[in-house]
């Protein structure tokens, strides 16, 4: 067991993926010599050589589009988008081909591609470097949309994603890259895609979230226990799509109340989907309206204003308190 931060944990998963399957390759802008702008691909070029860890020219569409061709030829490309804000340049390849090939060819050609991208705010970055648009991929049939939240699940989910036969959009909460360390098993560990995780058990209310927002959510849950004697259950979606309705519905059926938290814009976001599923699956257990604490439907502000903008524990606590008195 090693204490790793998320960057090292993700790096470990890629090293394992490269080592266990010669068809796995890492490709993207600055992932080789530079070891990634966040150093997530550290030492991989040195260890596996330039045929496995590949610096590409600056064109996201071709990174993903080339990966489609590589996957057709039996490779398993792990692509990096330097920031999720530049994945739109590749969106037509993701929507048009990555997500469709297996279905289109009636199973003849799968797309075992991972598209990794750092997302979310909080690191004082310039415009286009702080957005959270997981909903775009969740809305797109044929993709799995995975978001890690701790070093251990980052490693386990990324390794699973690399092994996965279908395309995975893998969002990395960059605010957590070096935020804390966690014990990560030495032996390859994976977690199933499509399973949410009850991070904290509770009785009075369910908090649903994922990614970097798990931190203020857990902080809020602790505070609520201390300050209000409220027992909040916290569910980390981990896979945003396909969503683990069962786990969130089981929790909310028990607690009767729910607040869902994410950074991305509210309208048609993952929060809306959580609410809709809860209404469909446990309407009669709901004792109060479900609140969404999310990014507002505006552009993520430049970094001088970002801390004020990002949902924090205080906002979550207030929503919980308001929900509890309903």
């Amino acid at each position, binding site marked *: 067991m090693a204490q790793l931060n998320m960057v090292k944990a993700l790096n470990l998963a890629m090293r394992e993926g490269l080592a266990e399957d010669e068809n796995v390759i890492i490709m993207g802008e600055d992932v080789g010599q530079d070891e990634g702008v966040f150093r997530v691909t550290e030492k991989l070029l040195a260890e596996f050589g330039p045929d496995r860890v590949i610096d590409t020219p600056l064109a996201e569409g071709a990174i993903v589009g080339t990966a489609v061709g590589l996957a057709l030829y039996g490779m398993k490309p792990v692509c990096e988008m330097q920031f999720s804000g530049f994945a739109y340049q590749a969106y037509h390849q993701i929507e048009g081909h990555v997500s469709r090939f297996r279905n289109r060819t*009636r199973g003849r050609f799968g797309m075992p591609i991972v598209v990794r991208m750092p997302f979310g705010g909080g690191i004082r970055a310039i415009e286009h470097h702080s957005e959270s648009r997981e909903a775009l991929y969740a809305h797109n049939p044929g993709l799995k949309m995975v978001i890690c939240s701790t070093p251990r699940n980052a490693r386990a989910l990324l390794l699973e994603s690399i092994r996965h036969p279908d395309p995975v959009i893998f969002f990395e909460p960059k605010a957590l890259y070096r935020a804390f360390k966690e014990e990560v098993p030495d032996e390859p560990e994976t977690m199933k895609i499509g399973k949410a995780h009850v991070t904290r058990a509770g009785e009075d209310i369910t908090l649903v979230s994922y990614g970097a927002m798990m931190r203020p959510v857990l902080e809020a849950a602790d505070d609520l226990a201390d300050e209000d004697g409220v027992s909040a259950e916290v569910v980390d979606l981990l896979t945003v799509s396909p969503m683990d309705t069962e786990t969130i519905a089981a929790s909310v059926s028990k607690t009767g109340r729910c607040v869902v938290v994410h950074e991305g814009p509210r309208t048609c976001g993952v929060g809306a989907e959580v609410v809709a599923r809860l209404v469909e699956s446990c309407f009669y257990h709901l004792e109060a309206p479900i609140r969404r604490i999310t990014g507002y439907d505006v552009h993520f502000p430049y970094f001088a204003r970002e801390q004020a903008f990002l949902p924090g524990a205080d906002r979550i606590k207030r929503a919980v308190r308001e929900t509890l008195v309903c």
Partner: protein
Amino acid sequence: MPRKKIKVSDKLEYLQILDEKARIDESLDPELDGDTLLNLHRLMLTTRLLDERMLALQRQGRIGTYAPVRGQEAVQIGTCYTLRSSDWVVQSFREPGVCFHRGWPIGSILQFWGGYEEGCAVPEGINDTPIAVPVASQLPHVMGLAWGMKMKGKDDVAIGYVGDGGTSEGDFHEALTFAGVFDAPAIFIVTNNQWAISHPRSRQVRAATLAQKASGYGIDGIQVDGNDVLAVYVATNEAIDKARAGGGPTLIEAVTYRLAMHTTADDPKKYRDDAEVAKWEKRDPLIRFDAYLRAKGVLDDKMDEEIRNDIKATLKSGVEAYEAARDVDPRDCFKYLYEDIPAELVAQAAEFDEALRHEGVTIGH
């Protein structure tokens, strides 16, 4: 010295072997044997007759909108004729001739235009991708496939098709950029049929040729008479041989003409003159090659009739196979999306099931 000329790619050439009057340039004649020549003829004719049959089927409502290929047969057959089955073909959406030669069943080709995913279920043993609808989006796939071949140490090639219109899309640029940098055994065929729906080649880009784009990527480019199957054959095979030998990518612009409408939903009279079409009718690649073969004594009326009858039989059984397979299950949209169907989709599939049961929906057309 300070204001100096920069030398760039003076290698760009135009290649024609069999001219519009069916005269061959002996110095360039690839001297193919009689069987090969006849086969090229047979394949171009198959493409032509298949195309005509598709148009008829469309008019009869037996398939949907169709994108005809009349006039472009030499590009299709000349480029794919010598490919191995371990090579890969990445089609655009107007390559029925290529598909046929690569072994796609006629029924399968019909299925795409009939509205069936089955038409994209690439038959086992065929290393091709199915029709790609978003223009030029398939070109990075060519590059990826070719690069995979190189990584695996194979001497195979990947060949991809795009139209003149498609050369304006960013995907074209990015695919060729990558192909050059990674020196991939990729061959990009631009079927310059002069039109992108109603948009003429001259307004697609201001450059005089599309082949000259190659220079910007540091790769070889050549422009060929796309209505001369021998020129297409020779240029492509040079590119293939070079790629197999590790010589990297090539861009081939095949200059041809779309004699018919863009698709059956299109009315070309709105945007082009009959006179232009008539001019190109005279350059029909089949007429030219037919005349050459007859002059050479490779083809005569009797053989031609036999070939036509053969083709008609093939088409007939293809259409029959297509029509026999029209009864499909709409619920299989859930079946192939992922390797394993996730729980939430199991629930949605059940919902769909129930809906269909209630609605008593007729399946197929």
